[in-house]
């Protein structure tokens, strides 16, 4: 039968593990930029110098946290970034629910209080105090509200007036 020692030494797995043992394995938390651009500042204050500007989706390595500021590393640069602009998950794609809520958009766009209370009554559910609610929803106006959309290029133009008023 096989002997253990020489058998084990011949197994590539043992050597693989030994090789792995020598490679550095660092576990660190990553943050991702969610705004279109984010600035890394020299200090956790708004009036600090801007060290570098990073784009949406960039991965930053978290070093320290101070209230609403994170000390992070990007490439070779270390700086402070506002917590508003980053999150620990990569940015998601835009979530669209248009067309997925067939219940509301098709057919009746005004649901009646009676429908609600009947459904509730038949299942033994009690309706909460309706004093703040006249029982009517207006989906037409909601759809109009959603239709107002500002294109990206316009926002950049819009920002000009703000940028101009900002001092040094």
């Amino acid at each position, binding site marked *: 039968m096989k002997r253990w*020692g020489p058998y084990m*030494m011949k197994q590539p797995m043992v050597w693989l*593990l030994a090789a792995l043992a*020598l490679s550095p394995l660092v*576990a660190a938390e990553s943050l991702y930029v*969610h*705004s*279109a651009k984010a600035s890394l500042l020299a200090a956790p*204050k*708004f*009036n600090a110098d801007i060290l570098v500007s990073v784009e*949406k989706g960039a991965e930053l390595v978290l070093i320290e946290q101070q209230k*609403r500021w994170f000390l992070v590393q990007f490439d070779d640069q270390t700086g402070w970034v*506002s917590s*508003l*602009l980053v*999150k620990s*998950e*990569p*940015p*998601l794609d*835009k*979530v669209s*629910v248009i067309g*997925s*809520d067939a*219940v*509301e958009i098709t057919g009746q766009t*005004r649901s009646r209080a009676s429908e*609600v209370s009947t*459904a509730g009554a038949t*299942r033994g559910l009690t309706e*909460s105090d*309706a004093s*703040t*609610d*006249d*029982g*009517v*929803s*207006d*989906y037409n*106006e*909601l759809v*109009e*509200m*959603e239709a*107002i*959309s*500002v294109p990206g290029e*316009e*926002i950049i133009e*819009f920002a000009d*007036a*703000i*940028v101009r*008023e*900002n*001092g*040094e």
Partner: protein
Amino acid sequence: MRALGNRVLLVLAALGLAGCVSMDQDFRARLSELDKSADAQGDVEAEVLFGRKVAARLLGGYDGVSDQELQYYVNQVGAYLVQFAGRDEIDFHFLIIQSAEINAYALPGGYIFVTSAAVAAMRNEAELAGVLAHEIAHVREKHIVKALDIRGVSTGAALGQLTSGGNDAFRVALTQASQAALAILTDDGLQQEDEFDADELAFYILVQSGYDSQAYLNFLARIDQDQQLSTQEVSRTHPDMSTRLSRLQGLREANGLDNLQYAVVEDRFLTFKR
């Protein structure tokens, strides 16, 4: 052979000791558990569907102001601010609603309403930006969703069920949840801490975006002092103004902002405000 084996074990042991001081088994977590984006996607969809429901309900009681240019302008300011608010997976929508009460409402999913009375009390674009930034902050922090949890109306994990349920029981539960949401917005208000948080975040958003944060303080002070303005609802649903103002002032001082110049953009605002 044996000596070599010993050496290998020694290396491994040494590295084990020299390795990370506090090591947990996080490395075992696989992508399906770690990456919450799939769950997050579902949650975001549920939040937006819920927000629509509450928004429709709110619009059942109020009407949007008919000045389409003003509405578009408010959406421009809002869209600009949203870039700095870190929730780019949802579309924010803004509307000015006709009301004599000064107030603004942030609904889940990015539906934000400001009353015409509030706009009437504003003097420049930075003040409008301040109010919008405060509401955007509420949406970012999902305060309403959390508040409904506190109140015991089932949301959270059930939100997905509520909004996707083809089941009548779920639809009724959703109606109850949206009624509760409106009650929070117009009657009870969110938790005090949430309001202070929103103020603080609004401050940061304003500075990031280049607006003058002092403008927001000015607006709050104005509506607090002016006896003629209708501020019952805002007082009912928010913490007292003096505390809010002193906190915001503290933030300005801590960040040394008094010496820096930021935008108020008065002219553009006045062309739309009428």
